[in-house]
């Protein structure tokens, strides 16, 4: 275990100097790339621990496990290569996708909230081509880019009926904006002036989530969660340019504490993204993972896979990820730093993405 940590950290530091992005190419033609509502701790178990993790934003009932005021933040740097069969490009990005704050108010009631990224909507596509203008062929390069996201502002509460049962509910406001750019560059800059169009697109919508967390037998916990959102409305310059229905997500998970130092979990969820627009796919995602060792310095491993909602062709694009991580508790448990790494591979429609994400999570419990 002591060898694993240095390896993870050295890999993180080394990779940070060079370059990938979570904003998958598979979200460009659709509403975006769905976010991951897991904290770094849960993320590095493939997301399998997210329904049982109070600092994740997936299942509100998990807030019931929080016994003191807790704030958690997630940051990741992503280095991605995209291969369309003919060309390959390396991309990188950094994101701050989630912040949660929660604390008990008494009587078994815990209130929490924060923000998380609901849909990543950043991309920059470069399309070189040639057009005939005034009888002459002109070399051009089009840049179509978006920089922004749909953000989920969450207010949630969990009520712990007993040590064996918690229920939670949350209200979600979807907001955020993207800066959209359409640029045409002309190779013959002496004759033609480049065209640049910039718009600001804003989003709104609301959602509601319910979840339940139960411990039927000692060491075993099960969770069920659902979320439904109304629609995503998009505006440019005050005028609505799109309105898309959003999916209902249903999921379940199971967690088994084999021993105090071995904890395993698995989860399954389904979202009917096909309601959002023609050509979108319903998705089913799964995750399995484990946390091993002392709570003060664990090793986490995870696998996840499933489908992506937006892509071309008759079948949904798929993704498969492997993750690992650890955590470091300090100041008598008031602070936790979680570190992780994930390798994700997405493919579909002739496009393959290979993504390395380096994750940092900070949890503060004053």
């Amino acid at each position, binding site marked *: 275990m002591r060898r694993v940590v240095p390896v993870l950290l050295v890999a993180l530091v080394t990779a*940070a100097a060079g370059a990938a992005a979570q904003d998958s190419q598979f979200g460009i033609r659709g509403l975006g790339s769905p976010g991951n509502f897991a904290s770094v701790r849960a993320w590095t178990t493939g997301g399998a621990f997210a329904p049982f993790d109070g600092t994740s934003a997936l299942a509100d009932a998990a807030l019931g496990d929080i016994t003191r005021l807790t704030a958690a933040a997630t940051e990741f*740097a992503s280095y991605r290569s995209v291969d369309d069969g003919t060309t390959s490009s390396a991309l990188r990005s950094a994101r701050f996708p989630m912040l949660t704050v929660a604390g008990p108010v008494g009587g078994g009631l815990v209130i929490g909230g924060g923000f998380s990224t609901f849909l990543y*909507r950043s991309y*920059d*596509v470069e399309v070189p081509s040639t057009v005939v203008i005034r009888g002459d062929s002109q070399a051009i390069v089009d840049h179509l880019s978006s920089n922004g996201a749909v953000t989920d502002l969450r207010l949630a509460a969990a009520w712990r009926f007993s040590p064996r049962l918690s229920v939670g509910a949350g209200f979600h406001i979807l907001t955020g904006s993207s800066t959209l750019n*359409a640029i*045409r560059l002309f190779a013959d800059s002496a004759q033609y002036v480049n*065209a640049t169009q910039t718009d600001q697109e804003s989003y709104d919508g609301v959602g509601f989530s319910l979840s339940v967390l139960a411990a039927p037998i000692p060491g075993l916990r099960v969770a069920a969660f659902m979320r439904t959102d109304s629609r995503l409305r998009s505006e440019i310059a005050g005028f609505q340019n799109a309105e898309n229905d959003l999916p209902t997500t249903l999921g379940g998970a199971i967690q088994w504490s084999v021993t105090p130092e071995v904890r395993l979990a698995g989860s399954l969820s389904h979202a009917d993204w096909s309601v959002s627009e023609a050509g979108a796919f319903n998705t089913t995602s799964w995750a399995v993972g484990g946390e091993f060792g002392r709570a003060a310095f664990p090793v986490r491993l995870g696998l996840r896979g499933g489908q992506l909602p937006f892509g071309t062709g008759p079948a949904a694009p798929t993704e498969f990820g492997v993750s690992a991580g650890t955590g*470091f508790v300090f100041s008598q448990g008031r602070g936790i730093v979680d570190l992780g790494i994930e390798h994700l591979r997405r493919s579909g429609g002739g496009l393959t993405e290979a993504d390395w994400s380096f994750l940092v999570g900070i949890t503060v419990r004053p």
Partner: protein
Amino acid sequence: MRLGRRTLFALGIAGALAACTEDATAPGKCPAFCPGGQLSVVDTILNIISRDSSYLGYVVPESASVMLAVNTAGLDSRPVFVLGPVPNRVAVLSTDTTTDTSVSVDSAILSLNITHRDTVATNLRVSLYRLPLSVGPTTTFADLTGPFTDSLIRTMNVDSVAALPGGVDSATGDSVIFTDLTDSSRVPIRVVMHLDAAQANYVEADSGRSAFGVRISADSLASVAIGTVTGGAGPIFTWWGSFDSSGTTVPRAFGTAINEFNSFVSNTGAPTLDSNLVVGGVPAARSILRFALPRAIRDSAQVVRATLTLIPVAPLTGATSDSMLVLIYRVGSDFGAKSVCASVSGSGVCPFPPDSAYVVEGSVPIGSTDTLATEVTEMVRAWQADTTAPQALMIRQLPEAGTLNFLRLYSTRATAFRPALHITYVPRFSFGNPR
């Protein structure tokens, strides 16, 4: 080990924070993995000139920056200038507190700055004539036929003198100096002509006030422009005399005459206005084109290229070097004939090229009827940026009254040949749903 773990965690966090840079540009695999919609380009010729007009009389010969001397292709133009009186007195020695009158007026030196000429012309000769002192703004070409026939003072072969070592004719004292050594075409020259006492003819009663005329000739392409006081390079006429200095006769320059009047007379008439557009000529004419850019383009599209096309009615005639330069200004305020150009920060000063948001330059060769196509992209984009600005362009010659030619262009009244704006634009891109 505890310290080691902390250090590694700190390094890890620092590394992750250091990764906060983006490189999100990927080659697009379109249409599968590109946003919906495509950027497009529209190229069209718009006959959107709502009104066009020509106006006369902007620059008259006596206020031009050059005096035109032309003797080719049936064109005949002759510079005329009047030099003010010069008192025939001078302090002979620098220590003298009084002035003396000359014993005799011996000579004069005339310098003419030729700012424009055809370097292909050979045997360029400058002939100087004495004119009556009554020469003025109302004097016509016909009025001076007599003096230009019988009052020749002398003729200088400019090419011959220029070919001499140092450009100096030691016999006459004449010289030719290339005034702009940075100009590889060696166009600008100063012609220095020495006149003896009889040629200079200092008339005491007029205190030396004189009037001269110039004609030029050459084997061909005889067309030059001589600088004026308005242009900052007027004729310089210096009188020389002999003075008595304690019994010894010494030569002294006793004065340089002030230019009272610089102008030229020609056998071409002023441009006349008809149903066409007129630019240039003497006195100078200007034309104004007023546009009505469609709102769909003005408000939503991005103009990537705009070309103003103008079709000459007839070819220009004259020496090859007389090709006409025209400036096309963006109009800042449209007051008809008194319209002013758009100026930087409202300074009121018309900019010069290459500030293409305000002015662009075009050239009309002699003998050509090719369409005059001038790029006005930045000006059209300026109309988009300021929708309250007049959508108008003013066309004028550079310099005005700089050639005898004037350009006659088809106007909107000639349906088949009217001016047009050839415009290429990118329509507004729809990002879609919400792509």
